[in-house]
């Protein structure tokens, strides 16, 4: 066994000199929080691709029904249950309605419900949770007990009840989802505010005499904005699923109005004869939910300060 020579001699080193300018220079450009998050989202391939896909879906939902020559409820007895073709890009359903147009009309409804329900929930939850966390005490106690109760009741049961009373439609769907949906964000925000309110910047704002509302909204909330946006993204799939479920059991949106849930329901009825009527809406529901989940994961990583600077 030969001995490995490890000793270092002085000749092996040389002085490279001192470059003060280089030492003091900033190696990374200074980025704001949002720039940094954007940069990391872009470098996350799955999340970035998801974002682009979602933008395409939104654009198609806005423009595709306008540009097509078919109406979303226009029936054609000579073109029923057709497969994919140049005439009807995604085929036609059991009443000869063009699926391409119906899918994007459905996307308008489903995406609007998903987005609106999630945003309204977040806003209510954030404000209420902010006050609860900041003040604590009785207000906090009462709101938390209310949340315990709402949380205990399965949200679908509440949705079904509300839909039965209000009747089907986009508004009732959103109201039903908001009634139970705000609790999650509220709990989360309360916890975060509770944690942050002891910090110096809050104290500084208090000393400056800022009103409580400003402290919560301008000082504390921006600090948890990243997490809130992540939660928001993750909440949209749930709302889309719920709409699909409610429409499926006949409570959500009623035909001929289209939503992805309605289309999927029509598809399950035609499954034996023309499976594409189910596959088409199923594909769009799944890819949208998938993209939102991936984007949510990407956002969580992008906003996580512990991962800052790592690629």
């Amino acid at each position, binding site marked *: 066994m030969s001995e490995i020579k490890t000793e270092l001699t002085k000749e092996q080193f040389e002085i490279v000199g001192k470059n003060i300018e280089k030492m003091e220079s900033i190696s990374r450009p200074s980025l704001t929080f949002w720039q940094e998050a954007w940069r990391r989202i872009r470098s996350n391939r799955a999340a970035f691709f998801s974002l682009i896909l979602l933008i395409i879906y939104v654009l198609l939902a806005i423009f595709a029904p306008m540009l097509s020559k078919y109406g979303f409820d226009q029936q054609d007895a000579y073109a029923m249950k057709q497969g994919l073709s140049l005439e009807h890009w995604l085929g036609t359903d059991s009443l000869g309605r063009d699926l391409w147009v119906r899918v994007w009309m459905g996307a308008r409804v489903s995406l609007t419900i998903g987005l609106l329900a999630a945003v309204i929930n977040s806003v209510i939850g954030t404000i209420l949770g902010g006050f609860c966390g900041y003040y604590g005490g009785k207000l906090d106690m009462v709101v938390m*007990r209310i949340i*315990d*109760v709402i949380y*205990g*009741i*399965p949200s*679908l*049961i509440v949705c*079904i*009840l*509300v839909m*039965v*009373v209000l*009747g089907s439609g986009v508004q009732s769907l959103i109201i039903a989802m908001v009634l139970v949906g705000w609790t999650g964000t509220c709990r989360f925000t309360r916890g975060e505010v509770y944690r942050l309110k002891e910090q110096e910047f809050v104290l500084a704002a208090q000393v400056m005499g800022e009103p409580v509302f400003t402290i919560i909204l301008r000082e504390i909330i921006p600090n948890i904005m990243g997490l809130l946006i992540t939660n928001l993204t993750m909440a949209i*799939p749930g709302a889309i*699923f719920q709409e*699909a*479920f409610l429409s*499926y*059991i*006949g*409570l959500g949106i009623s035909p001929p109005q289209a939503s992805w849930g309605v289309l*999927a329901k029509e*598809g*399950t009825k035609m*499954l*034996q004869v023309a*499976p594409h009527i*189910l596959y088409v809406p*199923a594909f769009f*529901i*799944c*890819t949208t*939910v*998938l993209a939102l*989940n991936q984007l949510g994961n990407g956002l969580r990583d992008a906003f996580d300060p512990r991962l800052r600077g790592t690629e």
Partner: protein
Amino acid sequence: MTKYILKRVGISLITIFVLVTVVFFLARLMPGGPFNDPKLSETARENLSAYYGFDKPIFEQYITYLKNILSFDFGFSTKYPSRTVNDLLAGSFPYSVDLGVRALCFAISFGLVFGIISALNRGNKIDLIFVIIAVIGTSVPDFIMGAILQYFFAIEWGLLPIAEYKGFAYTILPSVGLGFYTMASVSRIMRASMLEVVQQDYIKTARSKGISRFRVTWKHQIRNAIMPVITILGPTVAAVLTGTFVIESLFAIPGMGKYYVESVQNNDYSLILGMTVFYGTFLVLCNMIVDILYGIVDPRIRIAGK
């Protein structure tokens, strides 16, 4: 511990009370009123009015209603006045529970196994396959999953019976369809949790003591990694049991979800309300049991409450 259990039971009782009260007052808000159906015979209407005490002031009606519920009397169907909710429940609830339990067993066992295999093969092809299964599973609503399974396994390939519920082979497709989403989320959580546990110091300690890799994985890693999975069981039980609504109507299983959906589609108000109260109460109790079990399993809660 006792304090924790009492608190859970208390919250659940309040929740049930709130649910029952909300249902009662919503019933008064319903468009047209539940008993204005012109098809309803005069005697049936009178019987229903007497049963619900509509001639009395609202507070008294409320008390009657509470008494009825406390004696497990959930009301009549307005569509078929000879049927009571209790009859329907007695005939259909066992099917739903059976289906729900099967789906949960499938979801938890396969979810755990997939998660564990995936984590142990981190980064290679096997992991990738299971991650893709999990990602797809969590983006497909259960009724679409059920319909697709039905199409391929029953219609196209004819491997399994297409519908109804008459033996083990009949239960496979509905249970898998119902449990797939949960299975995917369990496997995701288990994978993440396994990967987190493997970095802990006690795993290194165990390995450095010379315990075999298998024993470390089995006795230390999996045991600790399973905790986060238990936390999602409460919401999961609720999700699976409400999921039975669509799966039952898809597979023509005579469970209560099917009747529930039917009653919604027929605007059979009193049946909807009765079943909602029953279903809601049942799910709240499920949640409570899961919470209490979690308290027993989690040493932090067990010790803190002493």
